[in-house]
C-alpha cells in the first residue's frame, strides 16, 4: 500500500481523471464516488481544513491501514470469505486518495489547502477515532453521525448500498448556472444530455431583485448583487408597490438524458405544465412547483448534486429552480425495451409462455402480476460502483424463513465490483463454494417458476438488465423439476420426472460404463453383444477410452459451435456434425458404431435436464467418470459416484444443505421430487427450507 505514496505525481492509474483535471473545476472521482470541486470546497468547507496539508493526510492513510478495526466500519458483519473484498476496497480507496493529492498538487501547488480531497480526510478521521487537530469539532460530529447511521442502516438492511457510505453531501447551489456548469462538467458535456432552460412565471412577489440571468458573466453577477444592495434599504411601500405591479419569472433548468428518459412524459407532463401554469407567491417555490405544476406521480426532492447526477444517469429528469437548494427528480425513466417473448432456454408445451426481459420493472411486474400477495417483498440493493445496477430480492414475508432472507441480503451487501453485469456474476459472488461444479443458485427465465419457488419458501434475485432470475436456496433435486410436471396430470408428470432422472443417470454414467464394460468387464454383457462389439472395434486403432474421449470432445465442440454460430449458419453445423459423428467416423474406422449410439444417447439425455447450468456441470462430470472407468473399471465409477455424493452432502446453498430434499428428509420429499404426487397430496412446503408456514392448502378443519 505504501507503494502508492511514492508514486511520482505525474503518473496516474486513472487517465480520465488526468484528462479532465486541467480544464474542470469539479470532478467526479469514480473510486470513492465523490465530487471534488475546488470552488465549492473553497466556499463551504474553508473553515474545516485550514491546517490540512499533504503530510497529515498521508499520515491518516497510513493509520488507516494499520488500524485493523477500521474494517468494521466498511462492513458491519463480515464473514471470512469477504475479507479479501474488503481489503481490495480499501486498497482502491487509498490509491484513489493518493491520486487526488497528486492531481491537485500538479494543478495548484502542494500547499493549496482547498484542493485537498476532504472526503478522504473525513473518512480517515472517522476511522482513526483519534482526535485530529486539523478538524473542528463540528466536522468530527458529522463524521461520527455518518458512521453511526451507516451501521444502523446495515442492521436494518434494505435499500442502501454500502458504497454510499463514502458520500459526502454536496449541496445544490442556489444559482442554477453553477448547477448547470457542475453537471455538464461531471458528465463531460455529453451529446445525450438535454438541457432546457425556461422560466417559471410568478404572478406576484418581488422576484425581480433576485432575478439572475443564466450564465451571467462574473462582472454582471457582481452588478446584480450591487443592485440588490441598492434595493434593500427601500421603504416598505416601495416593495409593496412592486409586488402588485409586475409578474416576475424565475429561471430554471430541466435536465434529462435523451434515450434514458421518456421524452413524451417530459414534454407533456413537465415542460408543458411549467410553461402554461404560473405560481402565486415566491415563497417556497420548489414546493409549489412540486405540488401544483409537475404532473408526474413519482417526484422526489433532492438535496445534493450527487443524488441529482445519479438520478439523471438512471433516466430521471431533474428540475432546478434558481434560488432553491433543492432540486426535483421526476421519474421519467423509460428506455427502449424488448418485447415480452417466449422463454428461449426453458421452453415447454403446456404452461405460460412468457419470460423475463432485461427490464427490472417489467420483471417485477411479471411476478407481482401473478402473485398478488400483499406479503410479497422486494428488497432493493444497488450493486456496482460504476454501473449502479438495481438488484432485487423477492420473497414472501411470513413464509420464507427470515434467516435465508437475511443471509442473502448480507451476501449481496458484500458485493463490491464496478459493474455487476449479468445475474451470473451475482450468482458467483453469493454462492457458497466456488470450487463446486454444481450451481448453488439456480437460474430461470420463467416467471411462473420463480413464483412456484417463492411459494416453496425460497427467495428470488432479479438483476436489472438481465432476463434471468436467480433462485436460492436450492437442492440437487431442483434441477430436475420442470414446470410442466405440474401442468400435466400427476401420472404423466411423474413418468416424465422419472424419465428425466433416468436420463440424468444415462448422461452421467453411460460413456464411463461403455469404457468399463468394453475394456474391463466384457463378461458382464451377453456374449453375443460382446462379440459383435469386439468385431466392430476390431479395425479401430484406439483403446476404448481414447475413442470415447474423442467422440465426447467432438460433440462438445459441435455443441459450442452451434451456440456461437449465427442461426442461419447453425444448420450447417448440424449437418456437418451429424455426418462427422454418425457416419464418417465409423466408416473411416476411427470409432465403433456402438460408440456413436452411446455418444448420441448421452447427448440427448443431457438435454432432458431442464436447467442449463446443471446440465453443463453434468457434462463436465461425465469426463470424470470416463477417466475413472478407464483406470479402475466399474469400481472406479462407483468410487467417483461416492465422491460426488460426498461433495453434494457437504455442499450448501445459502447455508442450507444442498442435498436438502434428498438427504435429511427423504420420504417427505419423494412426493414432489422423484415423482409428482397428485396436487391434492402436495400439502406441505419442503421442510428443509424451514418455511414459517408449512401448509400449502387449507386443510378444511382436519388435523394434518
Amino acid at each position, binding site marked *: 500500500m505504501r507503494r502508492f505514496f511514492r508514486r511520482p505525481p505525474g503518473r496516474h492509474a486513472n487517465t480520465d481523471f488526468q484528462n479532465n483535471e486541467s480544464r474542470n473545476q469539479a470532478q467526479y472521482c469514480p473510486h470513492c464516488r465523490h465530487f471534488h470541486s475546488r470552488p465549492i470546497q473553497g466556499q463551504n468547507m474553508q473553515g474545516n481544513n485550514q491546517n490540512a496539508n499533504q503530510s497529515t493526510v498521508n499520515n491518516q492513510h497510513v493509520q488507516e491501514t494499520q488500524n485493523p478495526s477500521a474494517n468494521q466500519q466498511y462492513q458491519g458483519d463480515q464473514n471470512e470469505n469477504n475479507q479479501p473484498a474488503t481489503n481490495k476496497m480499501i486498497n482502491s480507496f487509498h490509491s484513489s486518495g493518493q491520486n487526488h493529492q497528486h492531481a491537485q498538487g500538479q494543478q495548484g501547488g502542494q500547499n493549496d489547502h482547498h484542493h485537498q480531497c476532504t472526503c478522504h480526510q473525513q473518512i480517515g478521521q472517522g476511522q482513526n477515532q483519534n482526535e485530529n487537530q486539523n478538524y473542528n469539532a463540528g466536522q468530527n460530529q458529522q463524521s461520527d453521525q455518518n458512521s453511526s447511521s451507516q451501521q444502523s442502516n446495515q442492521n436494518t438492511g434494505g435499500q442502501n448500498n454500502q458504497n454510499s457510505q463514502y458520500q459526502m453531501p454536496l449541496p445544490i447551489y442556489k444559482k442554477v448556472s453553477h448547477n448547470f456548469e457542475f453537471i455538464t462538467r461531471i458528465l463531460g458535456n455529453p451529446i445525450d444530455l438535454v438541457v432546457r432552460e425556461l422560466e417559471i412565471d410568478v404572478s406576484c412577489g418581488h422576484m425581480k431583485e433576485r432575478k439572475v440571468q443564466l450564465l451571467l458573466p462574473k462582472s454582471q453577477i457582481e452588478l446584480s448583487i450591487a443592485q440588490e444592495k441598492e434595493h434593500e434599504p427601500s421603504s416598505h411601500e416601495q416593495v409593496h408597490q412592486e409586488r402588485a405591479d409586475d409578474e416576475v419569472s424565475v429561471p430554471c433548468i430541466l435536465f434529462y438524458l435523451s434515450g434514458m428518459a421518456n421524452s413524451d412524459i417530459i414534454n407533456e407532463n413537465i415542460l408543458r405544465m411549467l410553461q402554461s401554469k404560473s405560481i402565486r407567491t415566491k415563497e417556497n417555490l420548489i414546493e409549489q412547483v412540486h405540488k401544483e405544476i409537475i404532473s408526474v406521480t413519482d417526484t422526489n426532492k433532492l438535496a445534493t448534486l450527487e443524488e441529482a447526477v445519479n438520478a439523471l444517469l438512471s433516466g430521471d429528469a431533474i428540475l432546478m429552480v434558481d434560488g432553491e437548494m433543492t432540486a426535483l427528480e421526476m421519474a421519467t425513466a423509460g428506455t427502449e425495451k424488448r418485447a415480452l417473448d417466449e422463454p428461449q432456454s426453458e421452453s415447454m408445451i403446456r404452461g405460460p409462455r412468457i419470460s423475463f426481459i432485461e427490464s427490472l420493472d417489467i420483471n417485477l411486474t411479471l411476478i407481482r402480476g401473478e402473485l398478488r400477495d400483499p406479503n410479497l417483498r422486494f428488497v432493493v440493493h444497488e450493486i456496482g460502483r460504476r454501473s449502479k445496477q438495481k438488484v432485487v430480492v423477492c420473497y414472501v414475508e411470513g413464509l420464507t424463513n427470515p434467516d435465508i432472507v437475511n443471509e442473502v441480503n448480507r451476501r449481496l451487501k458484500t458485493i463490491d465490483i464496478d459493474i455487476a453485469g449479468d445475474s451470473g456474476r451475482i450468482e458467483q459472488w453469493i454462492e457458497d463454494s466456488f470450487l463446486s461444479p454444481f450451481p448453488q443458485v439456480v437460474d430461470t427465465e420463467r416467471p411462473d417458476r420463480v413464483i412456484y419457488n417463492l411459494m416453496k419458501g425460497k427467495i428470488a434475485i432479479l438483476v436489472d438488465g438481465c432476463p434471468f432470475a436467480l433462485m436460492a436456496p436450492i437442492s440437487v433435486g431442483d434441477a430436475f423439476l420442470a414446470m410442466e410436471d405440474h401442468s400435466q396430470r400427476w401420472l404423466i408428470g411423474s413418468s416424465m420426472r422419472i424419465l428425466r432422472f433416468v436420463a440424468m443417470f444415462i448422461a452421467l454414467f453411460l460413456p464411463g460404463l461403455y469404457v468399463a464394460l468394453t475394456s474391463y468387464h466384457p463378461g*458382464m454383457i451377453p456374449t453375443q453383444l460382446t462379440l459383435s462389439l469386439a468385431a466392430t472395434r476390431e479395425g479401430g486403432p484406439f483403446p476404448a477410452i481414447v475413442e470415447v474421449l474423442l467422440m465426447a470432445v467432438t460433440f462438445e465442440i459441435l455443441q459450442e459451435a452451434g451456440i456461437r454460430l449465427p442461426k442461419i449458419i447453425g444448420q450447417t453445423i448440424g449437418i456437418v456434425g451429424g455426418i462427422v459423428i454418425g457416419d464418417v467416423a465409423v466408416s473411416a474406422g476411427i470409432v465403433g458404431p456402438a460408440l456413436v449410439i452411446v455418444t448420441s444417447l448421452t447427448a440427448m439425455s443431457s438435454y432432458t435436464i431442464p436447467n442449463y447450468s446443471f446440465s453443463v456441470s453434468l457434462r463436465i462430470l461425465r469426463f470424470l467418470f470416463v477417466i475413472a472407468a478407464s483406470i479402475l473399471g466399474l469400481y472406479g465409477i*462407483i468410487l467417483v459416484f*461416492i*465422491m460426488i455424493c460426498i461433495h453434494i*452432502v*457437504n455442499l450448501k446453498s445459502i447455508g442450507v444443505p444442498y442435498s436438502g430434499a434428498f438427504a435429511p428428509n427423504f420420504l417427505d420429499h419423494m412426493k414432489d421430487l422423484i415423482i409428482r404426487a397428485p396436487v391434492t397430496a402436495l400439502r406441505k412446503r419442503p421442510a428443509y427450507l424451514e418455511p414459517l408456514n408449512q401448509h400449502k392448502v387449507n386443510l378444511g378443519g382436519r388435523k394434518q
Partner: protein
Amino acid sequence: MNRTPSPDLQGIISDRDIFIAVVSNIFGVMTLTVPRLIAESTLSSDGWMSVFLGGLIASLCGWIVAKIATSFPNQTFLSYASYLLSKPVAVVMTLIFSIQYIVVTAYNVREIAVLSHQYLFDYTPQEVVSLAFLLVVIYAVCGSQAAIFRLNVLFFPILISGLLIVILLPIGIIQWEGLLPFFQTDFKGYVQSTYYSIVNMLGFGIVLFYIGLVQKPQKTAKLTAIGVMVTMMFNVAIYIVCIGVFGNATIQNMFFPTFDLSRSAEIPGGFFERFDAFLFLFWTIIFFTTAMMAFDIAVMTIRMVFRKFKKINLVLILSPIIFLISMLPETYLDIVYFNKLLGHFMFSYFVIVTLMLGIAFKIKGGKSSG
C-alpha cells in the same frame, strides 16, 4: 428453527439418522462372510435361529447402551464415561475404542480389495484398489459430521434395494428340501453360532458416540433396537436363502457366500450375463458407509482426548497407519484370522464396556444435562 450458516448446524442430527446409521453400519463385510461362520457350527438350516437369537440379544444390548448414552444428551462419550467411571478409565476406554475403529476401517479397506480381486479384476494390485477406496473414505471424513449422516441417508435406499436384490433374485433357485431337517444342531453349536451372529451385529456400538450429536434423543434407544432388529431380519433372510441355494456343506467352503448368491442367480431379460459385478457396486457402498463411520469415530474419539488436534491433521496422520494395517495380512487366510481376532476383541471389549457403564449407571444414575 435457528438456522445459522455457520458450523453450528453440524452435529445436529435426528433420531432417525441414528437408526439409519445403525443399519448401514451393521451391514458390512461380516454380512458377506457370516453365513459361512454360522454354517460351520450348525447343521442344515438351523443357523437361522442363531441369527435370530443373536439379533435379539444384540438389539437388547443396543437398547441398553443407547439408554445409557441418551441419559447424557449432547455429551461426548468421554465426558459421560468419566462421569460414570473416572477420568483415567474413561480416557483409556476411549483410546481403546479409537484403536478398535482404526482397525475396523483398515479391515474394511482391505476386504474391498479382496472382494474386487476375487470378482472384478484379477490383475489390478490390491494396494491400488485399497488406496483408492481409502482416499474416498478420507474425503468423506474430512467433511462435516452432519454430512456423514446425510450421506448415510442418501445411500440408505441404495443399500436396502441392493440387499433386497441379493435376497429376492435367487429365490427361484432355492432348493427347499435343502433346508430340512430342522433342529439337528447341538447346544454348543447354537452357542457358537449365536456368538458369531452377535459379533456380526456389533456395529450398533456407534450409538455410544453418535448419540451425543442427536438433537432430541427421546426415541433413540427404541430406534437403535429397531435398527438392529431390521438388520437381523435381513440377515435371517440372507442366511436362509444361502442355505437354500447352496446347502450347508457348500457354504462352509465359500469365502463370501452372500456375494456368491448373486452370481448363481440368473437375471431375467438376458442383458446382464453376470449381475454380480453390478451388485459389487452396492457392496462397495455398504463397505464404504461402514468404513466411513468407523474412521469418523476413530477421529472423533481421539479428538475427545486430545482436543488440540485439528481434524484434518489427525485424518492425515491416521490414514497411512490405516493403510499399513490393512496391508499387514498377506494371504486371505491371514485376513480371516485377523477378522476372527477382531471379532473376539470387539465382543469382549464391548461386553466389558457395557457392563462397566451399566453398573456405574445403575449406581450413579443419569445426568439430565451436561
